[in-house]
């Protein structure tokens, strides 16, 4: 497997626009616009992300304002905050993390209870 260089936006960096592609990315600065990556995205402690996020997986220790869609897991760490709807295979919110919005995980209920999901 080809090792990809890790993407990193430092604390002083302000990025505005639409970011697309593959590979992992850590944001410690400020991002506005749109994020669409196939790899893992880490939103660092003091970072502010003002954008809809689509990623393979997402870890949030900073501030995210925007809807989140992840193929894998979304984890809101202590001090992290998401304002927006989250749709992912797995979503976890650590003690001290915050999420304001809807959560949607794809799973099935035991037999007989499926009917309660969608009328």
């Amino acid at each position, binding site marked *: 497997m080809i090792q*990809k*260089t*890790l*993407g*990193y*936006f*430092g*604390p*002083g*960096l*302000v*990025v*505005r*626009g*639409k*970011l*697309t*592609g*593959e*590979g992992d*990315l850590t944001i410690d*600065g*400020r991002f506005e*616009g749109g994020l669409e*990556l196939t790899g893992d995205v880490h939103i660092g402690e003091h970072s502010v992300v003002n954008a809809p996020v689509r990623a393979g997986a997402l870890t949030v220790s900073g501030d995210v304002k925007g809807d989140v869609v992840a193929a894998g897991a979304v984890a809101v760490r202590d001090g992290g905050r998401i304002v927006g709807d989250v749709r992912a295979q797995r979503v976890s919110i650590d003690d001290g993390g915050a999420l304001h919005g809807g959560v949607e995980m794809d799973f099935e209920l035991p037999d007989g209870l499926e009917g309660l999901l969608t009328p």
Partner: protein
Amino acid sequence: MNRPSVLPDGMKLVGDVEGEGDLAVLGTIEGDVRIDGALVVEASGVLKGHAHARSLIVRGVLVGDGSAVDTVRVEPGARMVGDARAPRVSIIDGALFRGRVEMSGDAPPRVVRSTPRRRSTAGEIAAPSSAGALTSPGSLAGVTSPGAHTTLPGFAPAAPIEPPPPAVVVVAAPVRRGPPNPSLPALRRTEARRTEH
């Protein structure tokens, strides 16, 4: 703490980047980058937009102006189309570059540009003021150049920048206007001949 920012290969940003710290571009950016640190467009990197940084190194592709507080370095393998502006600009052998190079900021290049013009007018000062009065007094008098001509020889270093430019315009304009005028009637004649046949 001073970990440089990286836009890796395989990522594309359509938008702008600004702020503090260093940045290495291995992917693609369509937009402007303005940072106070070092900016490196690596061999796989593509930057389509203007770049401004403390220092700028281009190893990949830069389509847009690149300016730096310290240095601009266009390295072998780089392809750059745009102006390079910095106190020190170096284009290393093997780099491909198309654009202007301006060194040591904004003010000095203007002085450099104006000195040859000043010399050219100084040489031609005698011609327009005397011969110009003979050939076309009306056109020359309207451009206020006679005043400049009289002051310049006496105070060449004291009154440097303001007077010469209009004098250049006066000298250059008739020469440029000269050729097209005779050529147009010639065209009309040939057209007229064609229509006659």
